[in-house]
Each structure stands twice: as C-alpha cells, then as structure tokens.
C-alpha cells in the first residue's frame, strides 16, 4: 500500500500527466472547434455535445497507445537508468510488490486520462454544439441518461484492453535499458497490430484491434459470443504479459 502511495505521489507530481491532459484538450478543441455535422471534412454526423465523447472514443485510444509507453517508460525504464529504482529496491520490499504498485499506478493513470478525455469532450462539445436532444451512436438516438450510461460503459470497457497493452509495455520496459527503446518498441508492436486490423481472420486476435474496438461487442447491445471471445483474448494477453513482466523483473539485475 505504501509503495502504491509513493507511485501515485510521483504520478501526480510529474509534469507528464498535465502535459498529456493539455494535449487531449487541444486535440478535442481542434476536432470540435470547426466541426459541422455531416460536412465533407468529417466522418461524424452527431449534432449535440453529449454525443462527442462516444463519437471521439477512438481518438482517445490512439493517444493512449502513445501515452502508456511514455508513462511506463518513465516510471520503470527511466527509473532503472537514472538509478532511482534502487531507492525502493534497497528497502524491505519484494520486487513483485514494487511492480504491482507500478501496475496499480498505471491503472490510476489510465482512469485519469479516460475521465479527463470524457470531461473535455463533453465540455467542449457542449460549448460548440449545445447539449443536444440525446446521444447519437451507431445510427440510434438515446435519451441523455442512457447516452451517458453508454459513454461511461464504453470507456470503462476500454480500460481493460488499455491495461493489457500497458502490461505488454511493462514487459518491454523490464527488458529494456532505455526509455526510448521502450516507447519505440511498444509503438512498433502496436503499429504492426493495427496494420493487421484489415485482415478479418487475424484482427479479433490482435490486441491492437481490441484497444480500438473492444467496447463495440458490448454496446449499444451485448453481442455475447464475440464479447466473451474478446474478453478471453484480452485476458490472455494481460495474463501472459503480467507473468512475463513479474518473472523477468524478479531476476533483473540492477546495474545502474
């Protein structure tokens, strides 16, 4: 618990979190400031601000693909390289506890980013378009309360593949000795994954596919079998990368 307190303290004291939030705000502003529903410059058709977070949800995923490796690269690889990882490892704590604390702080980081993105999209969308009559999603109009529920559910569901991706990055970070290597390797893995999304036979087994589309099997209506399959696949990725990270970190030699 104390380790987690430390990790969270560092998370909220570094500038990164606030820089990422600023980037999200700018991106949301750029997307919505000149937005005209159905115009040639956009694929979106929503007309009210309450629809903005759901319509823009894949933009959040794209940024999480970049933010997560930077966060983990700094929290693990950079600490290893700069020697600050030793500060915790020279205390009576198990290495697995330290990695659990870093994983828990990753979860908090992901949640903060998701919450901030939605707050920004609701606020900026409503500022430019007004609140609207309901939430437009997949060709349907939902009452505001229903729409907010769908938005929250979609975002909550996407946290699962984001965390699985985070665990992939964590595994890369444990093996890596530089932050840039961690970030580049993670982005490369995800880019390769995203490029397989065009192949129907492969895409459902790709983590990159689920980082973008996981929620679509659950909302607006539950598609049970694909939902179960996607959950299983993402769960296997998460478990495999977690196992790899914890095993490797337990044996990692701290030489900086």
């Amino acid at each position, binding site marked *: 618990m104390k380790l987690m*307190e430390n990790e969270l303290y*560092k998370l909220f004291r570094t500038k990164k979190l606030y820089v990422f939030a600023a980037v999200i705000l700018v991106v949301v502003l750029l997307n919505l400031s000149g937005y005209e529903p159905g115009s040639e410059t956009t694929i979106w058709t929503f007309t009210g601000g309450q629809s903005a977070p759901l319509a823009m949800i894949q933009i959040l995923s794209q940024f999480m693909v970049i933010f997560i490796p930077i966060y983990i690269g700094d929290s693990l690889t950079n600490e290893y390289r700069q*020697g600050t990882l030793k500060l915790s490892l*020279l*205390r*009576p704590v198990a290495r697995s506890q330290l990695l659990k604390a870093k994983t828990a702080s990753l979860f908090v980081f992901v949640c903060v980013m998701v919450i901030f993105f939605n707050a920004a999209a609701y606020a900026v969308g409503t500022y430019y378009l007004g609140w609207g009559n309901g939430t437009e999603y997949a060709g349907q109009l939902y009452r505001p309360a229903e729409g907010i529920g769908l938005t929250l559910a979609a975002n909550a569901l996407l946290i699962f593949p984001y965390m699985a991706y985070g665990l992939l990055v964590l595994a890369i970070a444990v093996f890596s000795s530089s932050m840039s290597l961690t970030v580049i390797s993670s982005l490369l893995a995800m880019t390769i994954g995203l490029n397989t999304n065009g192949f129907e036979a492969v895409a459902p087994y790709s983590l990159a596919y689920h980082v973008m589309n996981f929620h679509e099997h659950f909302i607006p209506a539950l598609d049970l079998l694909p939902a179960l399959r996607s959950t299983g696949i993402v769960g296997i990725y998460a478990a495999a990368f977690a196992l790899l990270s914890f095993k490797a970190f337990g044996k990692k030699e*701290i030489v900086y």
Partner: protein
Amino acid sequence: MRKGRNRMTSTPLLQTRRLTKSFRGRKIIDHLNLTVMKGDVYGFLGRNGQGKTTAIRLITGLIFPDSGEVIINGFHLRTNFKQAISQVGAIVESPAFYDYLTGYENLSLMANLLPGVEKSRIGEVLEIVGLRSRAKDKVRTYSLGMKQRLGIANALLGDPPLIILDEPTNGLDPQGIKEIREMIAQLSSEKGITFFISSHLLHEIQQICNRIGILKEGKLLVEGDVEEWVGRCGERSLEQLYFETTGE
C-alpha cells in the same frame, strides 16, 4: 581523528561467503569472503574496475550471485531478504533521487517504505547531515555534495546498524570530502553505526577506517586492522602497503 572507536564486540555484522559473480563469462567477483564486525569503519579498497561496486550490488541484492552467500546481522540475503536489507542503509554507485521533488519529499517517500519510521525522523536525519535549511528545495538544485549528504540521510532513515557507501567522496571538492569524512567519523563514534565504505582513495581510507579489505580482480587479497597492519610495517603509508600487496 580516531578510527573505528566503537568496535563493540567481535560479532560479525556483514559476511560474504565464497561470493562469486560473472558477467559474459568473465569472473568479476571471485570467491569473496569478507567480514565486517559491529562498530567497524571498513574500507573496501581497490582500483576502479576491480569489482567493488559489483560486490556492493551483490551485498545489497541488486544483482544476484552465481554462487556464495551474503549474511547481514545473521540474516541470509537470499532466503531472508526483507530482514537482511532492513539492517542496511546504502548508497550504491551515486546518490540518485527524484529531482523534481524536494529533499524532504524524497526522504518522505523512502520513509514510507520503512515500517515504524515516523515523519519526525526525516527532520532528524536532515539535521544530522546539515540539510535542514535546504529540505524544501528541489533536488535538481542540489550540488553533488548535497546529494551525497541526502543519500546519507536516506541511509540513516531506518536507523540501520550498517551503512554501505560506495565511493562517497567521488566528485566532491576538498571541503565536501572533509565534511563527509567528519560525518562518518561522528556517526561511527556517537551512534555506533558500522560503515562499509568502498574507495580507491587510499589516503581517505587510512584517515577514517579501522579495518580494510583490498580487492583486486574480484579477489580479496587481504583483510585486516589498519593500525595493526601499519604498525607491523613501520612508518610506511597505506599507499605503499597497498602497492606491495597488489603488486601494482
């Protein structure tokens, strides 16, 4: 300056037994057997690249031996890591801190990981190392000497019986070296803390240590009391003895 005046008993506080470590097929530490007694200020001597930092990393569990064992105050590091490492405060290689946090915040994070350490202890250790007035400044504004002192404050937080310092005067100016040397002597005599200090500066070690071990190519060539050793050899300095022993 009297040396190792608090050598209280002949109880070993730190022992390594046949500690061996290789990297890429090259033996860096070769069957290292060293013993640090309670109250010692032990100088771990050797040229750069002889394996001093690797030995310290092995002693503190940052890397793992190919064979051999480390026993700290009766606790085996491999099988009883938490109890063993609780006996140690250490600076390994260089004092690294979160430079976007203040000195106080850094120590506060580290105190969190030591059961039973109150926040008031942070003020005490900052006072001991003379950093109380700079406690609220970010570490990025600290000089190397101040970082060393913050590192010693961090090592002192849990009031451990053994403090390990890896080249604590590296990169310091003469005034900084003097301050660190006096601090070690004071902590040893007043608090009875045992020190294990690695260095390649023979003069420094002769001034503050009561016992030394000389490491060459990962092997401990000799271990013994400084005064006895120098006494046996007449007026010769530790430097001369070092070169005779190592054949350098």
